[in-house]
């Protein structure tokens, strides 16, 4: 017995440290292999190339949007150079700036609120529908609509600016805003008056949403009111293939 104790005492501390480190290493190697497992299996199925394609296309889309924002910035800078040359030009430039802001082509900052929606962590009951426990396109649209009603003047979902042409699409639980694939959790930022939260509380639609989606299905709805909320500019296309501006009819 004393021999064993003596032997344990003889183990040097660095050996103990190394032992623990190796234990942790073994655990991590195992965890890593376990995490890789499903993916390795899944490359043998036909789905994987599709996921790769989708993610590749989304990366392309992000690059195109960056390019669009950069080009718009350059165009704006050139147009602003002409500012002040003539009264007409000054007026046109001021109008252009106003139209860009109204259209959502300029990033904004101001008072507001940020909501975060995440899937429920509740276990889905045996007779339950798993889709009810995940954030849906309708949830996003409900929060956006309620925010507009509460006085919001600019909204973005995961950085995608909500404009007159913005649609929210649900493809089997995958949510697209402005045809951009959004990864959960969903962050809905809104600029507006400081009483937006109070206004939301007064809306029956909002109360119903919270009671059903959070109360019944455990959808995680949280919010923050930072001193300022930043909203990105719309980085999509001003799609006007069919539309022609109608000149205002001259006053009689």
């Amino acid at each position, binding site marked *: 017995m004393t021999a064993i104790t003596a032997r344990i005492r003889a183990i040097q*501390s660095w050996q103990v*440290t*190394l032992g623990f*480190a*190796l234990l942790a*290493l073994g655990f*991590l190697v195992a965890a*890593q292999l376990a*995490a890789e497992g499903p993916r390795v299996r*899944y490359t043998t199925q036909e789905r994987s190339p*599709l*996921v790769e394609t*989708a*993610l590749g*296309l989304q990366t392309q*889309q992000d690059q195109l949007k960056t*390019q*669009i924002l950069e080009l718009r910035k*350059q*165009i704006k800078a*050139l147009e602003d150079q*002409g500012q002040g040359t*003539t009264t*007409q*030009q000054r007026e046109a430039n001021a109008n252009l700036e106003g*139209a*860009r*802001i109204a*259209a*959502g082509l*300029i*990033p*904004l900052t*101001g008072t*507001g609120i940020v909501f975060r929606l995440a899937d429920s962590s509740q276990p889905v009951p045996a007779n339950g529908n798993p889709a009810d426990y995940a954030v849906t396109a309708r949830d996003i*649209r409900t929060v956006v609509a309620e925010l507009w009603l509460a006085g*919001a003047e*600019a*909204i973005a979902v995961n950085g995608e600016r909500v404009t*007159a*042409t913005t649609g*929210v*699409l649900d*493809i*089997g*639980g*995958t949510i*697209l805003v*402005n045809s951009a*694939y959004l*990864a959960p959790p969903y962050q809905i930022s809104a600029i507006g008056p400081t009483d937006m939260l109070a206004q939301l509380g007064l809306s029956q639609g909002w109360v119903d949403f919270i009671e059903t989606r959070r109360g019944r299905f455990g959808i995680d709805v949280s919010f923050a009111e930072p001193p300022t909320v930043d*909203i990105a500019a719309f980085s*999509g*296309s001003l*799609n006007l*293939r*069919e*539309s022609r*501006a109608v000149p*205002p009819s001259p006053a009689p």
Partner: protein
Amino acid sequence: MRASLRAPRSQLAVSLVAFILGILIVGQIRSQAGDSGLGERSAQDLTLLVANLNTRNDQLRTEVSSLERQLQSLELGGRNGTSSLNQIREDLARIRAWAGLDSVAGRGIQVTISGGIAGPALEDLINELRNAGAEAIAIEDVRVVAETVVGGTAGGLSVDDTALGDPFVVRAIGNPESLVGSLTRIGGIVAQLAATYPDAAVNVEAVDRVVLPATTRDLAPSHGKPRL
């Protein structure tokens, strides 16, 4: 004991293990964070997603070339000293039309709804039109902008404080074939409305020219300022 910990061999062993440990921890965290959430989707959904992203990227490429042309012509105008006023006005007209600040006309569709549907159902229809590529939408004489929300209950709907009668009309500008096709496809919004509201009738028709009014809303923000 202290002396043995300082021994070069043990230090080397501990450093090596710590190094590998670090790499593995980072790898593990990355593999968790890099989960796109797409892994569980069906092949059919992924195909739809890919199709959507493809269409969108094509539109964005068109926008890039159009902006590049605009930039070139502005640069040329600047070098030649010619006035860029016309270009600014063109740009202004395009943005105002898109934002709903000006009246627009073009090919599109007309959807006549009678018999009463609920507000969220009308919102679904508008959302479907947007997803189908509608360039501009109006409900009766109210131009739909981002802020537009349908209020009221079935039979007594209102949009931007304008009460909707029975029937009421939704008009949209865009490629008529794709808009009609998208609304009336099997399991599409028209089929869904027919199933949910058996008493309501939804009629979709392509129109050669629809004219949509400008919004009456003031879209200038008062709480938000441009971020430079």
